[in-house]
């Protein structure tokens, strides 16, 4: 994670998912495979990345709003840095082009 990403994340960027049809999911025993049609790239995802993609849609949301959706659907491991982790994961997914990011 570069300094720049942290700097950007303080400007409350918003994120949204691409079309659901862009993604082909396949569960393995310990991880989740994701084939991303627009890039032709296969990604292997560990928690909580698949859950993030699951709760997102075409609505632009802040990391905080996504965290709320996540907590509504999952028992999120309690911890003070949950929001930071979600921001970091969203930046990671955005850098791979799996979700869209717009500066706040």
């Amino acid at each position, binding site marked *: 994670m*570069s300094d*720049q990403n942290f700097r950007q994340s303080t400007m409350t960027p918003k994120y949204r998912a691409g079309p659901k049809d862009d993604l082909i999911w396949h569960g393995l025993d310990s991880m989740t495979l994701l084939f991303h049609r*627009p*890039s*032709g*790239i296969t990604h292997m995802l560990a928690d909580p990345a698949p859950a993030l993609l699951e709760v997102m849609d075409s609505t632009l949301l802040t990391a905080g709003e996504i965290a709320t959706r996540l907590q509504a659907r999952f028992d999120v491991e309690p911890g003070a840095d949950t929001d930071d982790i979600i921001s970091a994961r969203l930046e990671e997914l955005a*850098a791979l*082009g799996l979700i869209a990011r717009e*500066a706040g």
Partner: protein
Amino acid sequence: MISDAHILVRALREPASVERLDGGQWSELISIARAESLIGSLAHRLADVPVPDRVRAVLQDAIGAHDLARQQALWEADCARRALAGYPGKIVLMKGTAYVAANLAAGVGRSIGDLDIMVARDDLPIVESALLDAGWEWVKPDPYDDRYYRDHMHELPPLIHRERDRMIDVHHTILPLTAGPTPDAQAILDSAIALGNGLYVMAPTDMVLHSIAHLFADGDLAGGLRNLWDINLLLRHFSEADEEFWTELDVRAKTHGLGREKERALRLAARLYDTPVYRFSAGQTEFADYLYIRRLLARDGYGRETRKLIRFAFYVRSHWLRMPPLMLARHLWTKWRKGGKPVG
């Protein structure tokens, strides 16, 4: 054994001509088409022609490979768009990526390697730093090459993405700064056409003239048959869409100082691919046209490069074109002193 690439040119021009080929000739045609990076274009051209089963399978493989190349090229362009989201200027896609992004026939089955984009020269530093921030890195560690690029070339030294292993060439004009003609880069940016996703492609006349500049000025006519095939398809498409096209092309060629190159490209395209060019735009046939055609077809039925002498002559000439004599001597000297063979 086939001794030149004419069989490929004829297959592209008249697909029905392949119906007479025997098994050995098919193997030769396929090797030549692969060597000239035209196998994907050939596969699409022959889609409706009856061909033997094994040939159909080979052509289908080529179509599959180029579908993937097309998808990857569009994705790479999108990655660049996202990396440059904060950049207010125009980002103009070039060459193969532009043809597929604009849905042109020239993009169908075309092989696409690096991503080529053009931006305003003054903006190079901010574009460069945005790309470096987004995961691209320099390919060449060599300071001589780096300075050479920055001082004399029409592009930044190539960058490669550290995760995706894909190269990007960032241009600020369409010819090296040292080449004879000095195209009007600002005019190209001004007339560039928005694609709707934040990226641009060149206006029709500029797109054709860039393809022509690329054919003659970049390298030693390597890949020339493919570049000329692009030009053929672009000319056919734009001249059918707009009856003023030939006039506009002539005017624009003058703006960019590419009048002679345009005339020669039109003659070569008409000669090899039967392009219906407007006769008065193509100038007079010259003896050199014959040498160009000999060079373009220099490939045998095993896919080997042939006619070494004429190839070498074009290689030297390509450097001559790109650099004034004194600089050429310095360039070759530096390269020679470093013990390497001269590299394009």
